[in-house]
């Protein structure tokens, strides 16, 4: 049956291309329109989730993104538990926070070193940067490995963790496996401090914006898995009122919906929003470093978000150490629950910002409705606004330089869109002067 086999040599590079496009309409008077087009998969997953079992939502949504799978899992878990009236015990809650620390470290380090840093140092990519600054890339990979280790320990593996379930975990590792991570976390902490000092010394373009920052917030801790949704302009609501205050809008130019604050418009989610709203909840050590480096909150320059990410990595490492040192094994790895007709929602702080999920299920526990609002769609309008404000000064630049600048501005936000917009297609539309 098997014929003769043969091998052909290919040497073809698979790359991410064409997923991001930016349209700029301008004339001699200024920039009139900026449209960022990005591809956003949560929409496909919402349809895909219908009819699946409620227990499958965390694992299915984890596949939306390889950079932030834990974030999708956490929002899905909490939404399902909210629907079924399940409240995780303190030890389970702490384990989830520890897992989330791992993802913050992984995602932030990737963003800082592979996408953000080459921009500041003037390299086209991390490979070119590694030639002259190998220590930056090596350090980042070392710190990132610590995040991987945390995700592997609690998630069962590094990507698309599989150990997480509604009600808790399938299996809780023994005390010794937590303690074993201590030296690595301490080492990563030292490196992260160096990284923060290095990042604070980068040359930042002047770009102070005025944002409505939106993030989870709670009085006793820096936000990760829960809290009220607050803003620096007076918003203070419970997560279940999210859809009363935020509206998603279909825009013709993008597959991603734009999310807006009703009657207020664009807003910012992500590390800078969290930092500006919850600065007092950071550890004393992180705050004194921030102050020593002149980076005390608020920070409203999107280019400086690289420093905020470094500070959040430092915090996540400290928090992971604290959680490991106070680790109490839960009585049960998970709380059992019977499905019933119910609906619920939750929001958590993905590394790149607020991630909202809402589900409904029938009495067999089959999902009848799913809604996912990812940080990308929440920041999209703000990114366009940043560009609109920034561009008039730069429209005279040669197209290639202009493209690089736009890519940089987009990369301030989100590693998950950054990779799809790494090869941004720039469409410039110059309108002729109208004579009236």
């Amino acid at each position, binding site marked *: 049956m098997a014929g003769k*086999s043969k091998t052909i*040599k290919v040497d073809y590079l698979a790359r991410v291309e064409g997923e991001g496009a930016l349209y700029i309409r301008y004339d001699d008077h200024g920039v009139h329109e900026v449209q960022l087009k990005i591809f956003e998969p949560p929409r496909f997953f919402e349809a895909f989730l219908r009819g699946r079992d409620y227990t499958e939502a965390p694992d299915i949504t984890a596949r939306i993104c390889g950079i932030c799978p834990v974030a999708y899992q956490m929002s899905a878990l909490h939404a399902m538990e909210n629907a079924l009236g399940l409240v995780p015990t303190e030890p389970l809650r702490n384990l989830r926070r520890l897992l989330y620390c791992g993802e913050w470290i992984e995602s932030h380090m990737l963003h800082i070193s592979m996408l953000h840093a080459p921009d500041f140092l003037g390299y086209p990519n991390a490979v070119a940067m590694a030639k002259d600054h190998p220590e930056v890339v090596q350090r980042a990979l070392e710190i990132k490995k610590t995040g991987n280790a945390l995700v592997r320990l609690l998630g069962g593996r590094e990507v698309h963790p599989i150990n997480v379930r509604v009600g808790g975990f399938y299996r809780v590792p023994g005390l010794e496996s937590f303690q074993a991570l201590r030296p690595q976390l301490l080492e990563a902490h030292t490196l992260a401090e160096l990284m923060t000092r290095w990042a604070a010394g980068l040359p930042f373009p002047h770009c102070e914006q005025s944002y409505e920052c939106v993030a989870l917030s709670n009085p006793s801790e820096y936000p990760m898995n829960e809290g009220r949704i607050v803003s620096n302009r007076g918003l203070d609501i419970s997560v279940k009122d999210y859809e009363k205050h935020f509206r998603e809008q279909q825009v013709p130019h993008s597959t991603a919906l734009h999310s807006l604050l009703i009657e207020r418009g664009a807003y910012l989610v992500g590390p800078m929003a969290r930092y500006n709203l919850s600065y007092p909840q950071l550890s004393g050590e992180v705050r004194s470093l921030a102050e020593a480096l002149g980076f005390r909150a608020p920070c409203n320059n999107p280019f400086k978000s690289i420093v905020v990410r470094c500070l959040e990595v430092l915090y996540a490492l400290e928090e992971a150490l604290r959680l490991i040192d106070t680790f109490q094994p839960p009585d049960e790895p998970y709380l059992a629950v019977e499905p019933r007709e119910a609906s619920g929602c939750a929001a958590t702080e993905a590394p790149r910002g607020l991630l909202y999920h809402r589900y409904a299920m029938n009495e067999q526990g089959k999902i009848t409705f799913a809604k996912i609002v990812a940080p990308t769609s929440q920041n999209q309008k703000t990114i366009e606004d940043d560009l609109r404000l920034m561009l008039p000064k730069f429209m005279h630049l040669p197209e290639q330089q202009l493209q690089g600048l736009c890519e940089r501005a987009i990369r301030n936000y989100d590693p998950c869109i950054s990779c799809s917009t790494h090869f941004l297609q720039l469409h410039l539309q110059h309108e002729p002067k109208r004579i009236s």
Partner: protein
Amino acid sequence: MHEQSLISNLIEKIQQLADNEGARVVGAKLRLGALAHISAPHLREHFEQATFGTSLEGLQLEIEELTDIHHAEAQDIILENLQFEASDGQ
């Protein structure tokens, strides 16, 4: 979304080469750059998921993980070769 675009780009290329060759692809060898933001198991899983139910289902994927961060293609995934089963209509 990063991996979704990568994988569809890769699959498109394999499909196109298979059509040119007029034979069934049974294996593919990839080189994964040290800075490609994706691990070999992760890549394999996405690939299997994306080819499930298609003519590429069951294709043997060999992934060589490169460790050199200074390599010119450290951020890329390279399709090195494809193995075909000579189909003679039997």
